[in-house]
């Protein structure tokens, strides 16, 4: 269920941005443009802004169905940001979000031909394209989209469909230098801080070191009813057991495959030594009593409850998936029970690649549908949104309300502002929840022309201000300023992430993904929970079963898709 995975990630990204970029009042919004536009003479927004006076500002309302988020429906002009954008353009949007299954909803739209004016179909985008539900944007961009062009032009190659038209605008065009997330919302091996504390904050890098430390602590505290290590294997949330081999071997999250840096060949690692080594290690710690036996039957709620209990010493997961539990621990105020994310690898010689490299997700986005009443006004609205001062507004909000600017022109947030913005209702009333994702926009990790981070959450000043005392202490012990500093810089991978590459629905490759998942789900519990002397024979049995699937065919398909993507990406950079 790669698609699901992506949805969650997208959501997580969107929300990171939402959280980071909050504000409360729209009254001072007029000033917000100035700091953004001031430093560079060739202001990124200048080209179109001169014409604004002549623009058609008669009020108009469009509908936008956004499948990327699940937030209350609203009229965009009921939010502060939406109000501001309406003042600039006269355009109001009825924003609608799915309640039930997105595929069903979009299926009925396609079958009836009745679309909203603007549509972000999330994973159902291929179907909408297939049904020719979007209108081509090329001419509209040429005529009315100077800012769209500025932001998206480097990616035009990747955005073009086979017929040469652009049908939708993705959400991830990185503008300026790429800034990584200072916190770990992606994959990591987590370890409880009391373990590190007890042994004097040792530097641990390999899987053996990681489990040795957990074992040492576990043995020293027998009787405390501790769990050494747990994993989640429920529904589509199987990454906690499937993905570690890839990360331990020094690769970022490419889903089912590891992609060779030189040859760009995709290799399914589920039947590799990497996976064998990982499972053997789990088998070993299981025989030592460190592994949580119910890992393979627990549902998501039970897993979160387990981690929240503070009795689990370690686990592998993606930050966004366990965050509810981690927040809960933070709330207890007991820093010992909190966790530290670490970039664990198999061997000392391996460079970790946990952090996401900058990536352009070219199969998610927002388009104008064939039912749209006035595509020109919509394109003008999009273009207006992409002016830099408006990009500042959708992420940072309003100066003096949701962010401040110091004398060097750096944006920051006061503690009070940060606290205020933790409230979902505030996020919604300002409009961050509605505007900081799912629109034509700068991609996550972009840099504004004045050097500030586009995402408030990635601005070091903001990240610092939101750390707890315990966070600061442990960062200090490891001599870093942010959690991501412990992780290696991501290398450039033009195809990244392979899991987001569209695989045709119902194709053999997609069926392979489902089947291989089933085989893994069936055998991994046996491999981990068996007696150590049975491991080898079970592994061979598993290989035999896995070998029945068309692994080669899947790898070839993916390799081809990756090569296509690389060709498009590198083609565009020339």
């Amino acid at each position, binding site marked *: *269920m790669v698609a699901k995975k992506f949805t969650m990630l997208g959501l997580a990204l969107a929300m990171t941005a939402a959280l980071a970029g909050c504000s409360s009042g729209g009254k001072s919004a007029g000033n917000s443009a100035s700091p953004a536009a001031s430093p560079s003479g060739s202001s990124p927004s200048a080209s179109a802004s001169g014409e604004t006076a002549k623009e058609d500002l008669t009020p108009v309302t469009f509908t936008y169905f956004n499948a990327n988020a699940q937030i209350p429906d609203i009229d965009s002009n009921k939010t502060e940001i939406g109000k501001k954008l309406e003042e600039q353009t006269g355009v109001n949007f009825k924003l609608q979000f799915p309640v039930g299954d997105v595929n069903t909803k979009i299926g009925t739209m396609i079958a009836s031909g009745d679309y909203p004016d603007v549509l972000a179909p999330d994973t159902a985008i291929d179907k909408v394209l297939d049904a020719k539900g979007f209108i081509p944007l090329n001419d509209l961009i040429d005529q009315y989209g100077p800012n769209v062009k500025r932001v998206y032009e480097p990616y035009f190659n990747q955005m073009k469909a086979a017929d040469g038209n652009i049908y939708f605008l993705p959400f991830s065009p990185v503008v300026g230098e790429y800034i990584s997330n200072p916190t770990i919302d992606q994959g990591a091996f987590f370890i409880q801080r009391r373990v590190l504390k007890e042994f004097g904050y040792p530097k641990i890098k390999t899987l053996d070191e990681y489990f040795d430390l957990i074992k040492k602590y576990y043995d020293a505290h027998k009787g405390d009813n501790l769990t050494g290590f747990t994993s989640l294997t429920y529904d589509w949330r199987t990454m906690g057991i499937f993905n570690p081999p890839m990360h331990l071997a020094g690769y970022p999250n490419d889903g089912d495959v590891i992609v060779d840096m030189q040859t760009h060949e995709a290799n399914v690692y589920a039947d590799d030594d990497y996976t064998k080594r990982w499972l053997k290690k789990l088998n070993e710690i299981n025989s030592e009593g460190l592994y949580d*036996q119910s890992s393979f*039957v627990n549902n998501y709620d*039970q897993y979160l409850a387990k981690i929240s209990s503070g009795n689990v010493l370690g686990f592998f997961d993606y930050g966004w998936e366990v965050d509810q539990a981690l927040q809960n621990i933070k709330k207890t105020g007991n820093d010992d029970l909190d966790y530290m994310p670490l970039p664990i690898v198999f061997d000392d010689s391996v460079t970790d690649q946990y952090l996401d490299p900058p990536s352009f997700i070219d199969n998610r986005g927002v388009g104008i549908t064939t039912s749209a009443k006035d595509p020109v006004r919509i394109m003008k609205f999009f273009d207006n949104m992409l002016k830099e001062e408006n990009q500042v507004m959708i992420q940072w909000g309003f100066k003096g309300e949701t962010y401040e600017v110091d004398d060097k022109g750096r944006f920051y947030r006061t503690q009070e502002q940060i606290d205020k913005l933790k409230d979902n209702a505030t996020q919604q009333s300002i409009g961050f929840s509605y505007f900081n994702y799912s629109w034509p926009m700068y991609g996550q990790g972009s840099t504004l022309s004045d050097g500030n981070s586009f995402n408030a959450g990635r601005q070091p000043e903001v990240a610092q201000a939101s750390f707890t005392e315990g966070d600061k202490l442990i960062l200090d012990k490891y001599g870093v300023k942010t959690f991501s500093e412990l992780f290696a810089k991501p290398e450039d991978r033009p195809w990244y992430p392979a899991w987001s590459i569209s695989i045709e*629905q*119902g194709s053999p490759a*997609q069926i392979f993904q489902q089947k291989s998942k089933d085989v893994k789900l*069936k055998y*991994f519990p046996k491999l981990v929970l068996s007696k150590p002397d049975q491991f080898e024979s079970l592994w061979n049995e598993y290989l035999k079963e896995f070998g029945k699937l068309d692994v080669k065919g899947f790898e070839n398909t993916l390799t081809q898709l990756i090569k296509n993507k690389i060709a498009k990406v590198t083609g565009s950079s020339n």
Partner: protein
Amino acid sequence: MRNSISVAAQSPEALPRPSGVRRFFKLLLKQRTLVFMSVPFVIWIFVFKYLPLWGWTIAFQHYRPNLGLFEQEWVGLSQFKFLFADESFIRVMRNTLAMAVIKLVLGFVTAITLAILLNELRMIVFKRTVQTISYLPHFISWVVAANIISTALSIDNDGIVNKVLMWLHLIDKPIMWLGVGHYFWGILGISEVWKDVGWNTIVYLAAMTMIDPSQYEAAEIDGASRFQRILRVTLPGLKPVVIILLIMNLGNILETGFEPQYLMGNGMNADYSENLEIFVLKYGISMGNFSLATAAGIFKTVISFVLLFSANSIAKRMGEERLF
């Protein structure tokens, strides 16, 4: 079926047979009230249930919802082939049938038993309270129910089932109930009973109100015991409803649901928890393949019809209540 006495007068056999068609229309005219009371609804059902059956063509297409019926790409039986040729199909069908039989038998037996037990209760307040409470779990969605069940079956501290069994010395170490495949059918069956037994009882309770009390009195005078009264009066009184429900449910036998299987299924019990609906969910709906889902639907309908007509004709031959 009772053959009412009134029929005799107008029964077809009794009339001379001038011509079938004419006789038919004559009768129709005579029964025009009955016609007016039913035929408009037949038209309704034709529009709402039969017209959309053109959708079955989707099973034979590479379906694109934006195209009309004649613009579709026809792929013949490939969806059916995918369904039947899959190596897991036999296993999936085995699980479906096992779940269905367990559900059918357990469902009927428990609901009828509960209805009888309630009927034998003398304290009306207690009776109504028990009945109301037993109906509550029906309103708990499977997501919530599955969570409660998983927790109860856990090997951790909060697993009450293991705790009780250990306390009773029936087991000496906790069992990972959801981690052992062949327990799954049983767990599912019990869960379904737990959730719906009270709800399913309602129709039998209603049927019991139709039993003529004088029959109990007569049995009493004959010196029948409690059990004999249940056997001779209550059960025969329920028989028509039971048979009708049984025939209808047999037709639905492949509808074993997917929620509990999906929510309580995992890699360790997948060999026993995956049924037809889960299969369709995985390879049809979640891949946006409407065609596979439709093909599976047609397959289910065919099985339903076979079972329905067989059950109905068996009931007919045995001289019992039948569906049509």
